[in-house]
């Protein structure tokens, strides 16, 4: 039987899809739209610092970053192949996409360690 990494990639994609759905809209709404527009005041640096100082928050953030990036990587891989007709380059595209997701996870980890 031929082994394939697809089931594991799909699980990461699915988990990331759920996490991205639950967490990202509110983050973008608050920090990307409402605070810059002045609808909501920016929290103090001290408050946000205390928040990300919490170990639980750090672990959750790392999980969110890695899973969401794997979700995005998986979809970008398939969508680029379908839109541009470049499925024959799948091995390279896959390495680029998932490699990018891993790199993002490493960046998040180094920031918080």
């Amino acid at each position, binding site marked *: *039987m*031929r082994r*394939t990494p*697809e*089931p*594991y990639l*799909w*699980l990461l994609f699915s988990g990331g899809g759920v996490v991205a759905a639950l967490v990202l809209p509110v983050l973008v709404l608050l920090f990307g739209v409402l605070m810059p527009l002045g609808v909501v005041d920016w929290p103090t640096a001290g408050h946000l610092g205390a928040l990300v100082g919490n170990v639980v928050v750090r672990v959750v953030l790392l999980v969110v970053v890695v899973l969401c990036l794997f979700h995005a990587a998986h979809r970008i891989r*398939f*969508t680029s192949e*379908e839109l541009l*007709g470049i*499925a024959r380059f799948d091995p390279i595209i896959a390495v680029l996409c998932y490699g990018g997701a891993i790199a993002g996870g490493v960046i998040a980890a180094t920031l918080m360690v």
Partner: protein
Amino acid sequence: MTDTTRELRREAGTRTIRMEIARYRPGRDAEPVFEGYDVPLMADWAVLDGLTYVKDRLDGSLSFRWSCRMGVCGSCGMTVNGEPRLTCGTFLTEYGGGPVRIEPLKGFPIIRDLIVDIEGFLAKLSSVRPWLVREGEELPLGTEYAQTPAQLEAYKQYSECINCLLCYSACPVYVLDPDFLGPAAIALAQRYNLDSRDMGDRFDVLNAEEAVWGCTFVGECTRVCPKHVDPAEAIQRYKVTAAMRSVLPWGRR
């Protein structure tokens, strides 16, 4: 001819609809070309009746597949105004003043006019072993295998498939990559996987990049299915099954 039919014929003499039909005649056409035909716009005529009219009255060389004319045999699937449809269940009046464009199903090699080559699909279909796989039985069978209503319900929906190939034609993944195992074959594999009498295992066929993992859940297969099989759901469910078997140690055989 009854009076009513005669009346309809007379009325049809005044009301017609333009059918633009893709013609591909090997040796004559380098690629498919459209030819227009005016057919009577009858309230009870399906697109297939219009094609039959063209073949009987206007151009006997027009080629297309059909058989039962009642949405069961799955032979008369074509692209009608861009949508994959069973032409026996699609009425001409749906397209009002016309014109209505008839093309062969997308995603398949075209043999002639509206007839496509389905050999590739037949090979895929048999690769999933769409039958009850049993082990350790001698024929003839002396036992019955009764099922509870719940056991029947588990797979019944998927057994409605008539292999009409509308789902393949609607699937961009298949049309872009003909190696993709595709909606109907996977739904039929699930039809047997979920049958309490089946002892087969189709994991190796289904757990492949060209099988369930090629699907990006466009969902069009389900939308166009004339028998409400829901192949998209069948594929997503098998993705979960295959993923669980890959991850959990006791999920392996």
